[in-house]
């Protein structure tokens, strides 16, 4: 196995196309200065791309952490809040198609226009006049944000040498987590208490435009795209998007897809509503929510690292089972306990296990499929199966947990019941998932 064949085990958010061609960068043409990529340029590129990743985490977290403020601004019920998440999160699905345009028009112009689109619609979110204008601006913002992040991943894969690619992708992911922590810090600092209220958080989303205006002229088209356009690099024919549904791969696709779907629905239902639950059903202040989030995400992110180590040492299946059980147990405790100290520990461990499971889920999505269809498979899993969680998890919690008319009328119990829907994940992993620890990709796909 060559390094270029290694699957990317960095968890990538739904909406991110991963079916770009394998990183097949030809050695740069020494005579052509337009194809030279010195370290200083790669650092600059990473700076711009991490801002995309940072705001991907930042933007998603505003909605989750400021839900009570947004609700009272628009005077809507929990059910309406939940329903508006459906069109908002579908923006990530649309982003998949927008990002694919970069195959035709180029990475650079699409990246720059994505930054412009994201910042424009994020700024417009700050002037929303009702919940539906808010939902529309957030939908459009998600389209460009998802595309920006996806093109960022593609540019790293195409521009960074193989030895530094994984670290660059890891940096991108870390900044997405830092985006969540940044919202927590601003919440703790009381930005929502300024006269702009929650709208101030969205105005901060204008920052990428400043970075762009400073560095726009220094960002280059990727070498791979230039070489493709110049005809110096033969483009391998892209397999059809339906290829993963062929009989040989179908079982693994269905299996891995269902595992992702049943994990993501409760996961995104719980992350979208925890801050609301803590404030409205447990009497937390906004500053306490901020403190909990900063600590939990700061320490809970260790879960990613431990998961990566554990799946190499103990195997994918046992790691997934332990993380899956931990995620269910601690999330239910988090949404049931009245003890603040137990809630703190549960939030920390819930983040550790539930979000930290990302690397092993990413391994499932990539290792079971041969190189030539891995991108298409990952695209199906993330953009169809996993997106169901983004779209339906928060919506179902809002509808059932609505304090006035929901069937359950309580967000805490709704999330707790929903977490039980993660149980099929455990069964499917234990019963059907092949163990791939220590096996070469060629051996697995043979």
């Amino acid at each position: 196995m060559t390094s270029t064949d290694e699957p990317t085990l960095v968890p990538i958010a739904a909406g991110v196309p991963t079916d770009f061609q394998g990183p097949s960068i030809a050695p740069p043409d020494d005579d052509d200065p337009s194809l030279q990529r010195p370290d200083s340029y790669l650092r600059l590129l990473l700076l711009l791309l991490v801002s995309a990743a940072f705001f991907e985490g930042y933007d998603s977290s505003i909605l989750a952490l400021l839900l009570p403020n947004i609700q009272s601004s628009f005077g809507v019920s929990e059910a309406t809040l939940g329903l508006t998440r459906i069109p908002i999160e579908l923006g990530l699905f649309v982003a998949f198609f927008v990002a694919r345009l970069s195959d035709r028009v180029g990475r650079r112009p699409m990246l720059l226009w994505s930054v412009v689109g994201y910042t424009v619609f994020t700024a417009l979110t700050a002037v929303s006049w009702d919940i539906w204008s808010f939902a529309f601006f957030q939908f459009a913002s998600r389209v460009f944000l998802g595309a920006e992040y996806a093109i960022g991943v593609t540019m790293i894969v195409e521009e960074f040498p193989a030895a530094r690619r994984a670290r660059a992708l890891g940096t991108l992911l870390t900044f997405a987590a830092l985006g969540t922590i940044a919202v927590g810090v601003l919440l703790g600092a009381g930005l929502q208490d300024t006269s702009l209220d929650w709208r101030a958080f969205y105005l901060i989303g204008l920052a990428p435009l400043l970075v762009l205006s400073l560095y726009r002229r220094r960002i280059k088209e990727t070498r791979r795209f230039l070489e493709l356009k110049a005809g110096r690099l033969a483009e391998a024919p892209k397999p059809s998007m339906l290829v993963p549904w062929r009989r040989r791969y179908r079982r693994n696709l269905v299996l891995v897809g269902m595992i992702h779907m049943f994990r993501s629905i409760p996961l995104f239902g719980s992350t979208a509503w925890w801050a609301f639950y803590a404030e409205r059903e447990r009497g937390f202040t906004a500053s306490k929510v901020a403190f909990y989030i900063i600590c939990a995400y700061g320490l809970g992110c260790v879960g990613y690292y431990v998961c990566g180590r554990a799946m190499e040492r103990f195997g994918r299946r046992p790691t997934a089972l332990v993380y899956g059980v931990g995620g269910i147990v601690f999330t239910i405790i988090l949404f049931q306990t009245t003890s603040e100290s137990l809630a703190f520990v549960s939030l920390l461990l819930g983040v550790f296990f539930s979000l930290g499971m990302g690397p092993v889920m990413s391994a499932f999505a990539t290792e079971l499929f041969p190189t030539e269809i891995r991108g298409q498979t990952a695209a199906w899993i993330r953009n169809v199966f996993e997106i169901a969680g983004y779209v339906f998890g928060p919506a179902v919690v809002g509808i059932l947990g609505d304090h006035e008319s929901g069937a359950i009328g309580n967000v805490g119990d709704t999330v707790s019941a929903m977490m039980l829907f993660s149980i099929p994940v455990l069964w499917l992993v234990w019963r059907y998932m092949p163990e791939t620890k220590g096996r070469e990709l060629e051996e697995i796909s043979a």
Partner: protein
Amino acid sequence: MTAPVAAGALEDDADLRRPFRIGVLAVAIGFVFLGALVAAFGSGAERPEGVAERWLTDVGDTTRKGVRDRAEREAEEVGPLSLAADLLPRGDTDGRAAFIDLEVGKATGDGESVGVPFRLHQRIDGSAGPAIDGTVVLVDGEDGWAVTAIEPPVEGMAVPSEGGDPAAEAPIGLFVGTLLVVVLLTVVCSAIVRASGDPHPS
């Protein structure tokens, strides 16, 4: 470099269209079923606890810049704002909501008239003032629940953070029922995996 898929060794994509369409249809039916299930379980009725919480939130927002008019209008639809005069802070809130936090507990009453315990902190000079506890009295009328009075806290009624019952609680039967649905779902998932082809790698 990625390798092209060997065309001769695999099925033609045209053969995949039918199973693909069946799959899409199955997923669509699944989501319609989920939607119907959620709708079927919707109570449709208003809970007095939810109404009290919304009214108090609107009362708090009557000092909030940008939403004041809407908050006043919607609060008046449920109960006179004059009832809440003592809940609002005396000083200026600088255009922000009057309450820093708000929590309601379980309603107690005879069905026609109920009391909902609440606890809130006023915003005083940008910080949280002392806790204010009380009871929102609501009457079930032709247009739904209406707030008719704010009374002092009642012995034995408290908000969840003070040891009271939550405003609404899922019965244990719901969790048992959910578990049964999950077991059924797991069986269906297993059947789908088995029906989708042979294991690979074996």
